[in-house]
């Protein structure tokens, strides 16, 4: 496979994952706004921060109104993480690697782009927002379904999975990082309505509110939620799960190509660090420090993969 193709697949799936994550963040923010009567600008501000686009947003807007934040995250193509921009980037990469995709996957990506172009041509009114966000998630699921259902399990699939998992790990880690203070035991008043809303938001923004309840650990304690998001081995958006997915697919590549690269050492170290920890030791060490270290290491793994598999030369 061409290095460029591997890179195109990796980025295509990072951007697909990103568009879905951004949509989910908007959804979570929108929910708070609905369930609250008081001023919500600090919640919308935190949504912008979580999306990692504070700088770009502040350059254009002075305040954090629902209207501005939603528009910036959904439609603004100067924001590379907006749903429209990420969908467009995903499709551009898909066009570049089209020879590596099945017709089903290509058509799913292309249709998603066409649908978004239409749905996001004009600012989205509040009454239409749930439908539009639902469409984002549905299209994302269609692409994923086409990938799983029609692609050979070869290196093409591996790079697609690695891109998805890296973006996902980064996204979950950033959400924890922005909200970490609400998860700190010292800052929490267990059972107080305010914190329940905050945690609910965190869980919703990674589509975990239901699975968390299913697992029967229904009590929303700070350590319960943090442990679930970081260390759970069953939740597909936990840091551990996403990192295992990277490790697993890198291992397939090593087997397929017959060579271990530097990125394999990095992901092994990342997983070993997660295994070494309990949620108690993470809080003891400092949640914020732990998450910062994780994000840095995750980025380094991405950069190393780019280099090891010659995405750019």
């Amino acid at each position, binding site marked *: 496979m061409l290095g460029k193709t591997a890179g195109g697949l990796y980025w295509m799936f990072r951007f697909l994952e990103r568009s879905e994550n951004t949509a989910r963040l908007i959804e979570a923010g929108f929910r708070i706004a609905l369930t609250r009567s008081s001023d919500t600008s600090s919640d919308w501000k935190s949504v912008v921060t979580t999306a990692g686009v504070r700088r770009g947003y502040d350059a254009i807007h002075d305040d954090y109104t629902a209207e501005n934040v939603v528009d910036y995250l959904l439609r603004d193509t100067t924001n590379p993480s907006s749903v429209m921009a990420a969908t467009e980037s995903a499709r551009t990469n898909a066009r570049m690697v089209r*020879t590596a995709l099945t017709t089903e996957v*290509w058509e799913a990506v292309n249709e998603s782009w066409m649908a978004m172009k239409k749905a996001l041509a004009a600012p989205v009114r509040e009454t239409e927002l749930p439908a539009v966000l639902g469409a984002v998630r549905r299209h994302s699921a269609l692409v994923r379904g086409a990938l799983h259902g029609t692609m050979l399990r070869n290196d093409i699939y591996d790079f697609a999975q690695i891109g998805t998992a890296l973006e996902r790990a980064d996204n979950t880690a950033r959400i924890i990082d922005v909200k970490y203070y609400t998860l700190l035991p010292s800052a929490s008043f267990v059972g107080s309505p305010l914190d329940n809303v905050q945690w609910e938001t965190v869980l919703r923004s990674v589509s975990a509110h239901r699975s968390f309840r299913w697992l029967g650990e229904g009590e929303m304690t700070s350590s319960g939620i943090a442990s679930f998001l970081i260390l759970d081995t069953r939740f597909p958006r936990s840091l551990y799960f996403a990192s295992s997915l990277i490790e697993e697919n890198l291992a397939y590549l090593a087997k397929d190509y017959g060579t271990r690269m530097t990125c394999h050492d990095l992901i092994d170290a990342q997983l070993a660090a997660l295994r070494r920890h309990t949620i108690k030791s993470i809080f003891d060490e400092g949640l914020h420090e732990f998450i910062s270290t994780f994000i840095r290491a995750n980025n380094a793994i991405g950069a190393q993969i780019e280099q090891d598999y010659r995405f750019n030369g």
Partner: protein
Amino acid sequence: MLSAPDGARAPYRAYKDWFSNQNPSRLKKKAKEAEAFFRRTGITFNVYGQEAAQERLIPFDLIPRIISNREWTKLSRGIEQRVRAINMFLHDIYHRQEISRAGIIPIDLIAQNAAFLPQMMGLSPPGNVYTHIVGTDIVRTGEDDFYVLEDNARTPSGVSYMLENRETMLQMFPELFSQNRVKPVSDYPKNLRRSLAECAPHQCSDSCTVAILTPGIHNSAYFEHSFLADQMGVELVEGHDLRVVDGHIAMRTTQGYRRIDVLYRRVDDDYLDPLNFRPDSMLGVPGIMDVYRAGNITIANAPGTGIADDKAIYSYIPDIIQFYTGEKAILKNVETYRCAEPDTLKFVLENLADLVVKEVHGSGGYGMLVGPAASRQELADFADKLRARPSNYIAQPTLSLSTVPIFAKKGLAPRHVDLRPFVLVSPKGIEITPGGLTRVALQEGSLVVNSSQGGGTKDTWVLED
């Protein structure tokens, strides 16, 4: 489709029976379906300089253009003769230039030609093939009466539309293909791959690596590049994926550099090698011409083939065929006035309203004048251009092109068409896919079929006897 006295032309009879039993609203629905299918699969082309409408569809007309086997046989013999002669001509002008020594083509017309590449002098491409892929543009003026408009010997495009149009017709109207015996076109990608492999520098028919070089996703024909790569099962590379490794061209893969034997390039000569041609080109491969000279890569089509489809050379093609094959040209040339010659220029200026004037190096229907359709002001403006640079232009009479029906809003309507059959050349022979791409001028009376100028396409059938 209709010839005046006796109804439908013979090859259309079965189709016409079918058509008259169709419900027009069902056909309209089918036409919409076809468009949705093209959008969804991304069969689009990019139009330069149009930011908003970056990707456009080429309108597809659902009425096939039908050619009888008898007409096709003559046509394909004529095309083969032409392509054979063009390859001999190219070899000659880059070697001994016998044709100029014999006084048939003025040497200046070759040596001073912008499409002539001095870097190709004395160089013989692998298998001695210059034009691996040709798309000869043909118009029909009447029964068995064909003219060649252009020889497209550089990088003809449109073959993906030929294939997708057929695919679309098969999906929409499967019954038509059981009622009519239509020669298949779907082998083209496989044949292209084989034909290119036969031109490889070394004997490597099975293990030989072919790749397609594209300028990238912003190129107007990118869809076709990726489509062909996909169908042929070869890699689609860009200049920055390639470099010279141990005297060969190699592509950067996830496991290091891998050698390429044949490069089907969809990048113009000028951009092919910044070390040998345009130094600012980012699209090509630095040093590829040196590898080529050493005989270690096949470039398809060979650099410098553009001179054979130059519009000034075009007027000499009947002489070229005569000179190299000793045969009379089977297909006719459109009479061509070389405006560089003063008397001819005078004639062209006097008869501008009846002529079609084209730029010598132009393509895509840009920069041309269709006299009968032009306003007085347009004629006057063009006359000024002609006087300023006569050698930049040729003129041709307007032909009374035959028409075929399209499915228009108000039912069937006649429109002018041309035909681009696709020709593959290897040392083992010349093959032509039956049919080709039919382009149709969708506006009433228009003679311009180029997709960049609002033309559409049709499926093209060659019937078995």
